[in-house]
């Protein structure tokens, strides 16, 4: 039991919390057809993180968070600038900016010699979920012992705060987010600017991405911004229900993904464990595949069946 508490539980918590923060925000990205913004953001924070790291010389620090947030905002402004001034198509403008900023991050990282010490690019891509440990926990009762809870890894506490922030943001601006996602013109005429709301959404996305980033890596971040929200979108037409479903999908992907990665190979008889972050993303992807095929109203199989019934009548 104590091994589970010390090694598996922190990783599960970390993965699930990272998934939840990204998964909830992802709903609005998917609805606004900005799904790839999550992709772009998770790439552009790299130079910010590197600079923050060079400044503070420790991972998971606040300078890193601030650097990443600044990089995200800078990227959004740059994309907008290139789009407007150069009259470049939005997708292409995004492609130009995020590849360049990622490249700059990679070059600075290798150049400054920080690579391999605490931070390297593979780490940024894959994350390091398994490194979360909670050595002070021995029994189940430690789960509600505040003193022991305080010794949880810093990244988990950080993600917990970020989750609270995300949920507060969504609850406070639910109406505004909803209207501006479905009908930007109506939103503008009602007096809340879709532009500012869009920018604050991107800032929240950046915060969530950065908090999740150092723990689980950029690829899992991208997957979590899109897959749970897409899954939920296939299952319902009600935004509140969709948020709820995407939350459950993210949490369960975090849980089952980790369990599969840690114990799956063992069950098959191999003495190895595979990348947990990768497995969580794979589970999220599988959930979406299931939803695409078997969703009651929008699933491909059900649609086919309905078409057949119609044809027979």
């Amino acid at each position: 039991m104590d091994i589970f508490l010390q090694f598996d539980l922190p990783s599960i918590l970390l993965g699930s919390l990272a998934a939840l923060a990204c998964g909830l925000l992802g709903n609005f990205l998917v609805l606004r057809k900005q799904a790839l913004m999550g992709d772009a953001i998770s790439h552009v924070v790299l130079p910010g993180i590197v600079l923050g790291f060079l400044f503070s010389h420790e991972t998971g620090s606040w300078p890193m968070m601030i650097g990443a947030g600044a990089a995200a905002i800078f990227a959004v402004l740059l994309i907008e600038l290139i789009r407007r001034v150069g009259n470049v198509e939005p997708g292409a403008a995004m492609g130009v900016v995020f590849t360049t900023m990622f490249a700059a991050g990679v070059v600075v990282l290798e150049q400054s010699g920080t690579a391999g010490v605490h931070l390297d690019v593979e780490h940024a891509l894959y994350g390091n979920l398994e490194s979360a440990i909670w050595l002070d926990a021995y029994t189940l009762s430690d789960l509600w012992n505040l003193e022991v809870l305080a010794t949880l890894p810093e990244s988990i506490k950080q993600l917990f705060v970020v989750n609270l922030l995300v949920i507060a943001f969504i609850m406070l601006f639910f109406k505004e987010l909803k209207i501006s996602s479905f009908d930007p013109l109506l939103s503008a005429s009602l007096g809340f600017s879709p532009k500012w709301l869009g920018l604050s959404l991107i800032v929240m996305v950046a915060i969530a991405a950065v908090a999740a980033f150092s723990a689980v890596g950029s690829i899992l971040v991208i997957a979590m911004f899109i897959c749970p929200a897409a899954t939920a979108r296939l299952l319902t037409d009600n935004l509140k229900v969709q948020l709820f479903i995407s939350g459950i999908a993210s949490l369960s992907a975090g849980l089952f993904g980790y369990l599969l990665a840690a114990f799956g190979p063992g069950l098959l008889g191999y003495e190895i464990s595979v990348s947990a972050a990768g497995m969580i993303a794979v589970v999220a992807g599988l959930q979406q595949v299931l939803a695409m095929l078997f969703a009651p109203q929008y699933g491909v199989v059900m649609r086919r069946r309905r078409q057949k019934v119609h044809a027979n009548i």
Partner: protein
Amino acid sequence: MEQFFAALTMSAGYNTALVCVGAALLGAASGAIGVFVLLRKRTLVSDAISHATLPGVALAFIIAQTYFDSGRSLPVLLFGAALSAGIGVLAVDWIKTHTRLTEDAAIGTVLSTFFAVGMVLLTVIQSMSIAGQAGLEGFLLGATSGMLKSEAMTIALAAGLVGLAVVLRMKEFSLLCFDEDFAAASGYNVRWLDRTLLLLLLGVVVIGLKTVGLVLIIALAIIPPVAARFWTDRVPVLVAIAAGIGASGSFIGAAISASAPNMPTGGLIVLVLFSFFVVSLLISPVRGILAAALKHYRFQRIVHLRQGLLAIAHNEPVLEPLTRSILRKGGFMSGDGQPTFKGQSEARLIERDQKLWNLYREIYPEESHALADWSLKPIGQVLPADTVKVLEDELCPHLVVSTETPKGGAI
């Protein structure tokens, strides 16, 4: 620095030269194909393609290593990459057409899920504890330092072939980008053409994996066309410029990385390409920022001059500082704000011109609307002489006006 110039002038050894030439060919091919992907507004599909190569590379490595003991063979790995990237493209299309999700969500799904599968497989490879797996990391960010001669040769050859295919199919692709329906009506198989385009893009991505790495390879297909777009509006020229930018950027980037082996090749190439983009954005005479600013400046001066002269003609004081300074510089106004003799006569001409234009707007409202910006020029330079004569007769019916068009000269 010395080494960089040696690499740049291809005198830093045969291998380095081969790598640089391979990178240049790759840049040219991806720039050329990227033009059509950009024009079809499908740039980010390449992002899905590049990430979707990872599971293929990993699986190919596992299979080749277990059964043939040749895991590092580049063609095998690239074949696996192409296969899984192809499945990825089909998956994007399937999600887009068969579910309610939009293309961006489809791309994001495929990109992240495929890459995650690849990640899981990579950890499997790591725990297989077999030799030769070190080369796989190079696929993420590109590494040319340890490249074999045969590998560099394969890359150069394949890139050249893809570039050639793009040039040969240029006409069909342009048609596909600008008028799909017309292409279909002319008997082209649009679906097949679209697939060919994506297949060539896929080819470029796969070939570039080793040099640039899968995270940044899409920059090679995005940045050169976007930069080239500032210089021209004609497709063949666009393809040529994009290929040129891609080739020179990749060549320089590869040369820098040859002189500094620790630096990731892909990152350097992308940064060089981005500097090309910035230069194009700023100084291109066609659509650059400087050109646009200059155009705006000229336009502003013309408007101010005309308004100022009209004010003089109507005996109104000119108060606007910019207008005053423009009038003074042109010698139309003296230092104390009084119009000079030259200003008076020029003002008469402009007033007459303006009256003719006003009349034209009254009589032909629609035509004049189409000429909106032209109406800042002297009317005789824009409209045919006989129209101007009709207008002049209308303006002063009792006067016999010579058929000569008025001399503008003010602008």
